[in-house]
């Protein structure tokens, strides 16, 4: 079969990129290999672990379950875009640091993208709501408690 190529334009963290991609290129691989945005991590590559979570038009999705060509003319956000222009951490990044919400850090970008989008919609979440929102992201180091603590602390800080 001839290689099936498509020209796409995507916006990632506010920056426009034009690239030619093979149709079978996963969005996760496109971000990492073509755009060199390797902050998006790839774990299971079949939609179970949540490490590759990014935002598609503001909503968390698994980038390993979408083709790069499908992202044409869409807006993506990745962990590289979480700091402010001065390079300061997002409140959730700071809270993850303060509360030891990570050990190896492999799942962290996916968790940050899932939970920053969650906090944008739910400024005052209960612990149960945080755990429900976190349920699509696997972490094998922390046992989750410290991540939940970090999200609740970040929510409080973002409210004040």
């Amino acid at each position, binding site marked *: *079969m001839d*290689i*099936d190529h*498509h020209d796409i334009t995507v916006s990632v963290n506010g920056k426009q990129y034009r690239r030619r991609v*093979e*149709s*079978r*290129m*996963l969005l996760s*691989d496109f971000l990492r290999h073509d755009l060199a945005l390797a902050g998006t991590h790839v774990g299971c*590559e*079949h*939609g179970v672990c*949540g490490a590759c*979570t990014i935002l*598609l038009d503001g*909503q*968390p*999705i*698994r980038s*390993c*379950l*979408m*083709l790069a*060509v*499908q992202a044409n003319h869409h807006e993506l956000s990745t962990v590289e875009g979480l700091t402010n222009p001065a390079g300061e951490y997002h409140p959730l990044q700071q809270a993850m640091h303060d509360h030891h919400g990570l050990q190896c850090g492999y799942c962290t970008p996916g968790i940050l993208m*899932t939970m920053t989008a*969650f906090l944008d919609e739910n400024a005052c979440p209960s612990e149960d709501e945080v755990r*429900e*929102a976190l*349920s*699509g*992201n696997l972490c094998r180091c922390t046992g989750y408690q410290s991540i939940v603590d970090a999200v609740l602390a970040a929510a409080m800080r973002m409210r004040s």
Partner: protein
Amino acid sequence: MKPAPFKYIAASSLGDALALKAEHGDDAKFLAGGQSLIPTMNFRLARPTILIDINKIDGLAGIRASSGATRIGALTRYRALQRDAAFAMAFPLIGEALPHIAHPQIRNRGTIGGNLSHADPASELPAIAVALGARFRVQAAKQERWVEAPDFFVGALTTGLKPDEMLVEIELPLAKPRTGSCFMEIARRRGDFAIAGTAVIVTLDERDECIEVRLAFCGVGETPIDASSAADALVGNKPTETAIIDVAKSVQAMIDPGGSVHATADYQRHIAGVLTERALQTACQRARDGH
């Protein structure tokens, strides 16, 4: 890049998509949310040579009222159902089940039509469609037909869709007065496929006797299982605790779960009985309370 090579075509209209499918048949697959198809392609269990992306087709997504029923476009995402307060009020059974369906990231992409067409017997929506008495509008390039939910699901991951057809719309009849429903499932982790799950709908008359009882299961067979006949004895009678226990026993005798490394067939049967009792009691209470 994990999937095998394929040609990608973004269909511009439903007619365009159906013409392509008619031309390529089983070699082509429709790509909706991709939350089941892309994983199987990543594993190379599925190797379609053509992928017809239907995400850009106007009018395939959305919820609309039709006489005595609600129609859901096949491309409607779980998220849209979950965020539609009027829909959740009209179909509390679906509202109760949605949090059990995978995780937020999957619900943001996954579509109703994609889920039903994938026909995973452990999936929640097929059983719910059977319990609700849903009808599916199935379209090909030159004709369309309506299929009753139980006839749509032929086997595990197998539907009655022909190679040139697409499920385009799901019609749900509105609930009668004094109807209560309940969805319950047991999964190893929240969001996983169920070891067993049940969707129950009960309609009571003014004397609290059952007019109709609908009972469907996911995870305990090759297709969603319609077990409503296990509750035949309830119709015309009050749903007493003893009568409900009898229904649970009938369900256990009726189903033939396959068992797996995570749950033996006996355990699945046990769970199905327990869920029947709990969900029936809850649905009856809700019918009496008027919601």
